[in-house]
């Protein structure tokens, strides 16, 4: 498929790239480039005395940073608007009706909406090349950095496009804020995560760090602070199932695979009725969960990860049981993504119930429990097997504790999602938002109470919150087995209650006999 013959890209080009606009953008970019170049090369307080090569590097880094910000943030904002604005202005339906294939339309939006951004990016390229030539940056590294930057920006833009697809009227500002926070968060280093996942940042801004480092070496530097020496990890030193790999390579593969998840997600929905959107089929959602867990498992530091570095006073090692708990708690986020993809709205349920052969009632009433359970089973068992095989036999490990923790984790999530699914079937303006709010308020209150009373590891707390499970060890397990099993039963019971609520909500959505008699009234005149 030829991108340049895509009508949607052509349309965007015609709107955005009119000569006047190009001229203005070009002049602004040239001015910025010249000003930045002038500051670095014609002397300034902070760079006085630097050799020309360093000044060139500085220029390259600065321009690269501007380009990254333009591509990622500017492109992201353009993509957030891409679908939402057309829906707002009632132009989108006409696009849905054309014979553009869903993928064409998706690519047209992804590459069409930020066309002006791409042009600005190109306008800054001469300054960057000049900086690279004057400095001593390696050409191959600059090239790889650009590839990563562009590919990464496309990933972030695709994510923005997914958001655009689901936005409702009047939520754009929030979406843009969320996107900015997401960019900021993913570009900053997370010390806690870095301690047990040997994977560098996934932000496209990493490209700048690569150019700054200007070497392919994976060795770590040596820093000494106050007489002590530290070896801060090299940010490009990833460990894939124990083997060292350069982060640039990992990032490239990650970007490509993430795109393979994001673009089809938009494409399979973009031409549908918005009330009938479904990001992934349940099977695909399960695949996505497995994909995310594959990344987590691949880069996880399985053998006694250690918290170390200038910020940690005492290196602290994890037992295999702690590792399971660490992996499960990271998985809370992944399972929430999974669960939200599985949720169904009233419109979809109505179609099931009205359809010729309605899905078995039991499947509707327990939705999405079976898939969550299956997901927990696959991920949890894989996790336990790897721990079993990798673990240091001298450290604490118990299959019973790990198994119980997994089962509890599964039912705790199932209970939450049965609640959310029920809320989502209620008649209200924003049913899911209300459900999420209630859930958030519940957890906030529970955490505050438990925290204030220092009940975090009290086994009875497990009835309300999963916190005691995360610190569970063999001793605590044998001491409080009955209470913990009781807590598990409480989760199951709560899940059943929400299931019954859901059954009631379903009953209301079934085709009503009254509407049959009403339509029969105006006799058979209607041909």
């Amino acid at each position: 498929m030829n991108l340049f013959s895509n009508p949607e890209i052509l349309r965007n080009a015609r709107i955005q790239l009119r000569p006047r606009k190009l001229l203005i953008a070009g002049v602004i970019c040239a001015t910025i480039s010249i000003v930045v170049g002038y500051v670095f090369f014609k002397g300034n307080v902070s760079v006085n005395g630097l050799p020309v090569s360093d000044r060139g590097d500085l220029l390259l880094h600065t321009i690269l940073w501007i380009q990254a910000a333009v591509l990622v943030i500017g492109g992201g904002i353009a993509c957030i608007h891409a679908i939402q604005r057309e829906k707002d202005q009632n132009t989108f339906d006409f696009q849905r009706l054309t014979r553009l294939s869903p993928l064409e339309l998706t690519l047209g939006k992804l590459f069409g909406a930020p066309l002006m951004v791409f042009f600005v990016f190109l306008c800054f390229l001469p300054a960057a090349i000049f900086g690279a030539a004057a400095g001593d940056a390696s050409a191959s590294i600059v090239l790889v950095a650009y590839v990563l930057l562009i590919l990464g920006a496309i990933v972030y833009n695709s994510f923005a496009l997914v958001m655009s697809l689901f936005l409702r009227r009047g939520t754009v500002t929030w979406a843009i804020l969320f996107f900015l926070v997401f960019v900021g968060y993913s570009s900053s280093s997370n010390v806690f995560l870095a301690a047990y996942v040997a994977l560098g940042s996934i932000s496209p801004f990493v490209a700048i760090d690569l150019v700054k480092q200007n070497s392919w070496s994976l060795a770590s530097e040596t820093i000494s602070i106050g007489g002590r020496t530290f070896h801060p990890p090299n940010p490009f030193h990833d460990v894939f199932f124990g083997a060292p790999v350069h982060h640039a390579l990992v990032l490239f593969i990650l970007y490509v695979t993430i795109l393979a998840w994001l673009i089809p997600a938009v494409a399979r929905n973009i031409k549908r009725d918005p009330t009938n959107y479904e990001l992934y089929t349940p099977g695909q959602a399960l695949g996505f969960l497995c994909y995310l867990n594959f990344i987590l498992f691949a880069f996880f530091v399985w053998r006694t990860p250690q918290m170390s570095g200038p910020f940690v006073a005492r290196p602290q090692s994890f037992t295999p049981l702690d590792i399971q708990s660490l992996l499960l708690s990271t998985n809370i986020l992944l399972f929430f993504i999974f669960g939200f993809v599985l949720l169904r709205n009233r419109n979809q349920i109505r179609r099931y119930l009205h359809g010729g052969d309605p899905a078995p009632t039991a499947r509707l009433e327990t939705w999405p429990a079976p898939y969550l359970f299956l997901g927990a089973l696959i991920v949890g068992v894989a996790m336990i097997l790897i721990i079993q095989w990798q673990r240091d036999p001298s450290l604490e490990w118990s299959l019973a504790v790990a198994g119980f923790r997994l089962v509890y984790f599964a039912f705790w999530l199932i209970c939450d999602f049965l609640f959310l699914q029920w809320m989502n079937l209620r008649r209200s303006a924003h049913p899911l938002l209300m459900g999420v709010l209630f859930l958030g308020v519940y957890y906030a209150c529970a955490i505050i109470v438990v925290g204030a009373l220092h009940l975090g590891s009290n086994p009875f707390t497990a009835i309300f919150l999963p916190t005691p499970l995360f610190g569970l060890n063999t001793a605590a397990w044998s001491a409080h087995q009955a209470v913990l099993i009781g807590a598990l039963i409480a989760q199951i019971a709560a899940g059943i209650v929400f299931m019954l609520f859901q059954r009631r909500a379903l009953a209301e959505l079934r085709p009503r006999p009254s509407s049959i008699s009403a339509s029969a009234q105006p006799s058979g005149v209607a041909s």
Partner: protein
Amino acid sequence: MVRLENLTKEYDLPPVKGRPAQVVAADRVNLQIADGEIYGFVGPNGAGKTTTLKMICGLLVPTSGIVEVQGIDVEHRPEDALQFIGYLADFFSLYDDMKVWEYLDYFARAYKMPAHQIPARVTEVIAWVGLESKRDAFIQGLSRGMKQRLGIARAVLHNPPVLVLDEPASGLDPKARVELKDLLKNLNRDGKTILISSHVLSDLEEICTSVAIMEKGHLLRSGKLAAVMEQSTETAAKRRIRIRVAEVSDQLMEWLSARDGVTEAHPSAKIIPGSSSVDFLFSGSDSALAALVKELVVAGAPVCAVEGSAESFEQIYARLSGGEVM
């Protein structure tokens, strides 16, 4: 041909005063629309016209039921069905920052027309809706009527056999309405099936071959315009009679009102200056009517003419929909 089978759409309404509600915007609608018809969907606001038309285009998924256009299921094979449909929404906008020809060029490409045919087709369609002078103008600067015509130009661009136009006449001035009607008649002459909705009945009465009367999601009546009107007249026990007289007097009114089978006698509005007439509803056979006229003449009333005024579509509609005419 367009076929609707048990087409149903239920919506959730945002809660009003705390009580949320559901609405059945289309309730088991069954219709067959033959090729070459101009099929009018009539009904007050909220009757479910837009919902039904959107389901026909595949823009909304039905809660249940089937839509087939040219024998293709719209929900399951949208890409195949959509080439046969041209659609104009009730509220729409065009890309304001595009030029008229660019806009049409975009849709021609999006409909996958052969590239070498596109410029000629765009020129042809622009001429056909009378926008030649605006070819290179930005859409932003067009008038409402011009935008409407450009919208129709877009809908017919890929030469679809079925056109779905949702309230195309709303918001147009009388001149633009007449132009629109001519446009639609021309299209129909070229063999296009046109589905058109309106709450302005006079628009439809003139151009439609068939109508579907909708209300609250139900299809009250449907079929050929003449048949729908005839059916309604049959079901009505009373006919509307107009008697032209040289002069209307109170005596005449009293006399008429006292007759058997006469109701609602009243002097009709003066249409032609210098002539007066009386309207009333009459229930009874033609011979009973003849007897009445004879008596009237014998009694000395200055009768000039007797007309059995046909009930207008608007009146029929008013009766069917319980008076909710727009």
